[in-house]
């Protein structure tokens, strides 16, 4: 059937698009994953626990904190609170994908589970047309990203000591990825208020609270300010009517 052939061809094309979109994350995740694996090996954990963490927790920076918890045998209450605080930012990511993910059927649960900082940013950069034409693009990106991360951590825990090259500094690729997505978003939108507010508020809290605890308060304040702005606009609209 000609129609069938066209669909397969499109599917391939869309998959290639997803791979292309995920390549920047590949470099970051493979090498950060390796760093995580090496750290796990140094702390005395083998491939089983390393892979379990990357498959079931799957939260980059939190997994590094996890290693220190494991090494210290941290009290469980502290573990829960710290995780909530470090990963609380995720609560804001889902807000932008409630509608889109819900339409994804059997992929929905995985999409929710796998929404990391990097995957979130890449998914934000997928135009609506593309996501509507082939919703699996988003699934492929999410699954590829986690594959890179899991593969990296396995390589790290199994062969970390054998790697011939010093990868120090490769983590900058994640910084570069966020910068690029930021620039693209700035160029593609006419209003820069939200982006400018994001910069200003987070720099303010960074200076006020220091590098370890500024992000969540920043996001809370940004969300609150935006809600207030929305309420004000609505009231204005009602007055006009």
């Amino acid at each position: 059937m000609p129609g069938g052939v066209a669909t397969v061809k499109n599917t391939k094309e869309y998959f290639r698009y997803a791979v292309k979109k995920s390549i920047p994350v590949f470099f970051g995740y493979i090498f950060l994953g390796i760093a995580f694996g090496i750290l796990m090996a140094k702390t005395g954990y083998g491939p089983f626990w390393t892979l379990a963490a990357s498959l079931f927790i799957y939260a980059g920076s939190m997994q590094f904190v996890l290693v220190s918890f494991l090494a210290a045998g941290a009290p469980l209450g502290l573990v829960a609170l710290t995780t909530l605080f470090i990963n609380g930012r995720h609560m804001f990511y889902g807000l932008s994908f409630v509608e889109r993910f819900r339409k994804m059927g059997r992929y929905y649960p995985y999409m929710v589970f796998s929404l990391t900082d990097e995957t979130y940013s890449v998914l934000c950069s997928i135009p609506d047309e593309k996501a509507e034409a082939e919703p699996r693009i988003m699934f492929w990106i999410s699954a590829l990203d986690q594959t890179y991360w899991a593969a990296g951590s396995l390589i790290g825990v199994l062969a970390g000591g054998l790697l011939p090259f010093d990868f120090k500094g490769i983590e900058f690729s994640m910084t570069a990825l966020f910068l690029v997505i930021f620039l693209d978003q700035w160029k593609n939108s006419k209003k820069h208020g939200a982006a400018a507010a994001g910069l200003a508020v987070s720099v303010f809290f960074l200076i006020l609270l220091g590098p370890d605890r500024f992000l969540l308060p920043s996001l809370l304040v940004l969300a609150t300010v935006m809600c207030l702005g929305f309420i004000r606009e609505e009231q204005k609209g009602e007055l006009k009517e």
Partner: protein
Amino acid sequence: MMKTISIMAIVAFVTLFTRVLPFVLFGGKKGMPKMIGYLGKVLPAAIIAALVVYCFKELTIQPALQKLWSLSAGAAVILLHLWKRNTLVSIAGGTVLYMLLIRI
């Protein structure tokens, strides 16, 4: 062993909780309140800006030379991207420069 399992399970569970929460709150049949829909549209730009700041957070505690390397590599990414508009070129260029600089 038990301790390892409990710590990992708690981290996994709480992380999942933070990811599931918005979908549980607003993904139901009732649909999203208008305000949350609006928030979902305008927040990404602010969040990505905040994540950029997050990536440079160490600037506040780094020694001067390290600061200079981070900022130079960041500037290189911006310039490359404004010039070529090629995501991979910008990321690779900035990262390679950073890796070279910190080895000086």
